[in-house]
């Protein structure tokens, strides 16, 4: 099918058509035509023509990171926080392979990226030449699609296809690998008026109408359900469907739990929101999953961190699975009501069809609220020791849940998910599927560039902070005012937690002593550094950080022995939730 997106300019509006230019110039013009306002990259031998073209094209904004991994995570943070497609650029060989973790991160969480790599010249391909790597081959399992550009004449079309593929259907990273000679070759610049991808069904969403009979079936199922539950995932946010989701919740009064990737799609103060489910989910959300008789999963893929042992997941529920990816339906949890489509479009149709008034399951809702009241998320507060949960609560309170929060991976990530009161979609940027350490800080740079007016807080552990700390240089040179919180417990906290609970306290290689003085590290890059070791210091220092117009790193020296609770140990079912010492009971065992 041929399909022209509205947001791309009409061909006539793209300047310089008909001119004979290099492949590099075509690349830049096409990126600008796609509305790309920032590319994160790192030069190298195979992309020198591209960087040379940038030199002569001041309209093109490029941010030089200090590592290719920083570039792709920044592009990823930009994409997640704005909804636009992120773009990064690297050279052949090691430049390309350094992107791999970032490509896999984006792929697992369905983040739209266009990843451009240079490669050695065509005549050297396959000869093991200097800085040659088969990046297309290596990344096939972790891209939505990939291109190797053989002829300069194909370049403009491939770039348009890449943006269409990245940003439609189930979104994801697209790789474009361009040999050096193609970037130098000259051809006539023609903006492709239409593109045709016969094997791709999501080019035009209008071509995929939602199955109306299935919607009627679902409405009937809701009407006859005594204990309905909504499970909203990242697909709702990707589809910009939070507004219609809220409307659906208001109309049906169905309680809702949001996965890690779905946090922010329902505001934390919503009276029907139960919190996050799964391994570190709330008691109320996990109980709701165990007890519900109808589970409506929207844009969620039943990750094992959500379902835990599958035979204990929603055992009494009829499952309706609403997802844009037909392959997700039935992959893990059988669905008797499968509906394929974009979350927003499905919910819009449902909202239009819902009869009113809809019966309210007051008893069910009250039983869940009771659990929310009786078993809230909690920790032991302290006036002397700085607790990591306290830091997150403080950040949440002082930003009123309005900041964009990026996290790294580990305990602090779970505390951020639990204790930050997210109010908006696209305000949590976190590596959910791949669980990539080193993601938290560079992704905040991309998020801040994409949202210049917003407060961006990057929450990191002391482990992950050291995996991409070199990007402090960009914060300093571009004055990117990210507030970088290091939740510093001097250990690999989540690993320690597992070793404590599952490996009988045999701590193995979790001690991070020898880490740098983070304040000095920040200052070495020209970024303001602050430290807090007590709750009162934390208050004072954080206030100062928020008032500082530029980037600030805050080293929150927190207590070492905090554990993330509740916890459902791996291999256990949701009902085996451990509430921890602060819960009213150590372990939930019955009703």
């Amino acid at each position: 099918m041929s399909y022209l997106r509205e947001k791309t300019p009409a061909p006539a509006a793209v300047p310089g058509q008909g001119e004979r230019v290099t492949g590099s110039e075509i690349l830049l013009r096409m990126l600008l035509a796609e509305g790309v306002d920032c590319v994160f990259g790192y030069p190298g031998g195979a992309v020198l023509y591209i960087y040379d073209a940038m030199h002569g094209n001041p309209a093109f904004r490029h941010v030089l990171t200090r590592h290719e991994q920083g570039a792709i995570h920044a592009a990823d943070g930009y994409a997640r926080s704005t909804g636009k497609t992120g773009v990064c650029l690297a050279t052949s060989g090691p430049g390309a392979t350094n992107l791999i973790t970032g490509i896999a991160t984006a792929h697992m969480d369905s983040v739209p990226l266009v990843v451009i790599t240079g490669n050695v010249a065509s005549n050297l391909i396959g000869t093991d030449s200097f800085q040659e790597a088969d990046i297309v081959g290596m990344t096939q399992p972790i891209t939505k699609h990939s291109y190797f550009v053989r002829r300069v004449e194909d370049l403009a079309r491939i770039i348009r296809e890449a943006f269409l593929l990245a940003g439609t259907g189930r979104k994801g990273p697209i790789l474009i690998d361009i040999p050096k000679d193609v970037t130098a070759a000259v051809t006539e610049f023609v903006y492709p008026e239409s593109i045709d991808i016969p094997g791709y069904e999501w080019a035009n969403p209008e071509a995929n109408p939602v199955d109306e009979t299935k919607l009627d079936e679902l409405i009937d199922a809701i009407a006859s359900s005594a204990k309905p539950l909504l499970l909203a995932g990242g697909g709702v946010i990707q589809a910009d469907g939070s507004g219609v989701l809220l409307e659906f919740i208001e109309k049906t009064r169905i309680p809702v739990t949001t996965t890690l990737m779905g946090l922010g799609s329902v505001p934390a103060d919503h009276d029907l929101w139960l919190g996050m489910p799964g391994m570190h989910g709330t008691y109320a959300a996990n109980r709701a999953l165990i007890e519900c008789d109808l589970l409506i999963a929207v844009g969620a893929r039943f990750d094992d961190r959500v379902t835990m042992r599958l035979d204990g997941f929603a055992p009494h529920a009829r499952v309706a699975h609403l997802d844009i990816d037909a392959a997700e339906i039935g992959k893990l949890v059988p669905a008797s009501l499968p509906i394929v489509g974009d979350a927003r479009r499905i919910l819009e149709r449902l909202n239009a069809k819902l009869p009113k008034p809809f019966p309210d399951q007051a008893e069910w809702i009250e039983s869940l609220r009771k659990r929310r009241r009786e078993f809230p998320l909690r920790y032991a507060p302290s006036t002397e020791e700085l607790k990591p949960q306290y830091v997150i609560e403080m950040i949440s309170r002082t930003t009123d849940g309005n900041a964009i929060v990026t996290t790294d991976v580990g305990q602090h990530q779970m505390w951020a998910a639990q204790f930050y009161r997210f109010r908006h979609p696209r305000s949590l940027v976190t590596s959910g599927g791949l669980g990539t350490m080193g993601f938290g800080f560079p992704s905040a740079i991309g998020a801040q560039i994409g949202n210049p007016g917003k407060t961006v807080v990057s929450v990191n552990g002391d482990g992950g902070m050291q995996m991409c700390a070199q990007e402090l240089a960009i914060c300093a040179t571009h004055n990117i005012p990210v507030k970088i919180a290091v939740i510093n417990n001097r250990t690999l906290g989540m690993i320690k937690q597992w070793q404590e609970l599952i490996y009988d306290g045999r701590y193995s290689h979790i001690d991070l002593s020898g880490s740098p003085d983070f304040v000095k590290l920040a200052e070495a890059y020209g970024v303001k550094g602050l430290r807090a070791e007590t709750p009162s210091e934390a208050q004072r220092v954080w206030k100062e950080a928020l008032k500082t117009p530029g980037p600030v790193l805050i080293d929150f020296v927190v207590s070492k022995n905090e554990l993330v609770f509740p916890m459902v140990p791996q291999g256990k079912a949701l009902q085996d939730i451990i509430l921890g010492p602060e819960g009213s009971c150590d372990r939930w065992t019955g009703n």
Partner: protein
Amino acid sequence: MDRKLIGFTVNDTPGVLQRVSGLFSRRGYNIESITVGPSEREGCSRMIVAASGDDALIRQMCSQLRKLIDVLDVVLMHERPYVSRELMLVKLRMDPSKRAEIQTLADTFRCSVIDIGPETMIVQIVGDTDKNDAFLQLIQPYGILELTRTGETAMNRGM
């Protein structure tokens, strides 16, 4: 678990076989054979994959295949009447005293002897996988020196 044939058309682009085989290997799907060759459509090849798994798994394979941009359409061959064939070449040790016997067997299975040397002979057999398996079992005692099979290709009957 049942063995099922999945038929699909792919863009005839470099790396497409790698995309398909990579999908099967990384998701741990069990496949017995893949056949690829040009189709009636210019620029497109047709692949037939013989895979085993329960119904849900086979459907999951089809859904995952459909997601590949270079895969154009996917059908489960058994959902409509179909025919399937596999080409097999068997090199046998040639014992002159057994030649007539082998020839009779080959005739019964409608296969042909396509090469005879001083010590070996090559038999060609075309049939569905079950028939080929049956022939192999019968011929086993004569001493199989070498065996090559193309894997099954298939086509739905009618329009």
